[in-house]
Each structure stands twice: as structure tokens, then as C-alpha cells.
């Protein structure tokens, strides 16, 4: 089993590839089907943001070995796109641009255990989420 997987994100097909790899990795680590779906869904949303707003970026999937044999999956979604001007605003529930769910970041946060975001205007965005096996 690969411990570190990288998927270049540029098209809608890459979104499917990324979430499929995420699901496979989750299955290999014996996450439950439900948890694997949460992980795959989070990856899908993050990859989608890259395609929509940054045109291209990278998703990295890492296996984590935590304390007392605890295992987890870390997803790092990184792009060199326009960045988010107001991260606080983007993380507030109900934030929307043109009536859509916007970046859907509050939603993604609910799917995972740990959520971190770094973004600056014109300096790209990096979202890091982690899901631990209970």
C-alpha cells in the first residue's frame, strides 16, 4: 500500500481519480464504508474547488501513524490559484457567492476530524484535512 499518493488536478476526470484513490486508501486502512465515503466526498469537494477556482493544483494523500497505533489519512489540496481574500468569511456557514454554496468549506470541515487552511490573495490555497480511524 502506498503511503503517499499524489494526483494532479486539472480536469473533471481528475476529480474522479482523486476520490477513487482516496476511497481505495481508506479501504486499505480498513476504514468503514461510511467513513470512506466521507473521505472520498471531502476529496471530491476539495478537488472541485481547485478545478473551478485555480484551474490546476495537486491533491496529496498521506497515511498517518499516530499515537498508540492510531492510523489516519491526511489530504492536502494545494493550488497556485487566486487565493481566498477573506478566509474567515469562507469558513462561515451559509457563505455563498451567486446563490451557490461557494467553496463549501464549512461542509468539508464537517466531514473530517481536522481541518486547516492557508490562503492568501494571489498566493494560492492549501487545505489540509485529516480523518482518523476511530
Amino acid at each position: 500500500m502506498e503511503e503517499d499518493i499524489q494526483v494532479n488536478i486539472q480536469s473533471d476526470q481528475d476529480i474522479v481519480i482523486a476520490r477513487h484513490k482516496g476511497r481505495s486508501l481508506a479501504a486499505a486502512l480498513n476504514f468503514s464504508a461510511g467513513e470512506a465515503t466521507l473521505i472520498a466526498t471531502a476529496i471530491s469537494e476539495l478537488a472541485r474547488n481547485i478545478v473551478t477556482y485555480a484551474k490546476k493544483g495537486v491533491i496529496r494523500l498521506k497515511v498517518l501513524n499516530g499515537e498508540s497505533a492510531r492510523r489516519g489519512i491526511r489530504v492536502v489540496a494545494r493550488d497556485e490559484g487566486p487565493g481566498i481574500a477573506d478566509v474567515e468569511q469562507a469558513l462561515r456557514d451559509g457563505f455563498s457567492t451567486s446563490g451557490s454554496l461557494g467553496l463549501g468549506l464549512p461542509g468539508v470541515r464537517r466531514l473530517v476530524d481536522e481541518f486547516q487552511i492557508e490562503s492568501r490573495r494571489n498566493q494560492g490555497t492549501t487545505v489540509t484535512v485529516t480523518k482518523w480511524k476511530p
Partner: protein
Amino acid sequence: MEIPILRQGKVLIATLQAAVTDVDLMRLRTALVQEVVRGRSRGVIVDVTAIDVMDSFASRVLQDLAHMIRLRGAETVIVGIQPDVAFAMVQLGLRLESVATALDLEEGMDYLNREFKTLA
């Protein structure tokens, strides 16, 4: 990947496969609306049993699809959303408002038949 559309009387049935891309979904939306017009269909069933992830885009396309089809005088039912997928959708805040849902193909057909009777 093209998604096949089956015709069963006045109902169209489209079955999605697991690796459906954004482009596939948008093509399906267009094709279904065209078929509804062409065949004067009264109902559309979109079967998502094989879908393992429903994200914001898929949710939006399905809502648009239902809306466009309703403008053509037909009713849409989404069937087969899996329990895990439903749970993830709700976490993301995707509710598929104003779109009918049913457990499976059979229930979807029952729903449409009831609707047809009411509207007749």
C-alpha cells in the same frame, strides 16, 4: 462515458455508473431534457444506486435537471441514494430540495404512477 437512457412507456430511466464525471452529468442533463420533449415523456427516473460520492456539483446538476424537466411538464425522481452517500450529503449541506427521491427503481415508478393519477 455516455449514460444510456431507457424508455419505459411514458417514463425515461437513466442509470448512472460509479465513475461519472462532471461532463457526463451535464451531457445527461441535456440529453434527458431533449428526450422528454422528443418522446413526450411524463416522468424521469435517475438511478444513482451505483454512485459512491454525491458532491455539490452532482447535487446542483440533479436539481437543475429536475427543474428543467418540470418546465417540460414532466416529473423527476432520484432513486437509489445509498445510506453512506445520504449521510455525507447531509453533512455537506446538500438537501436536494424540490426534487423527489425514492428508495429504488420500483418505488420510483410507484411514485410516478401515483403522480400521473393525481395529475390526470
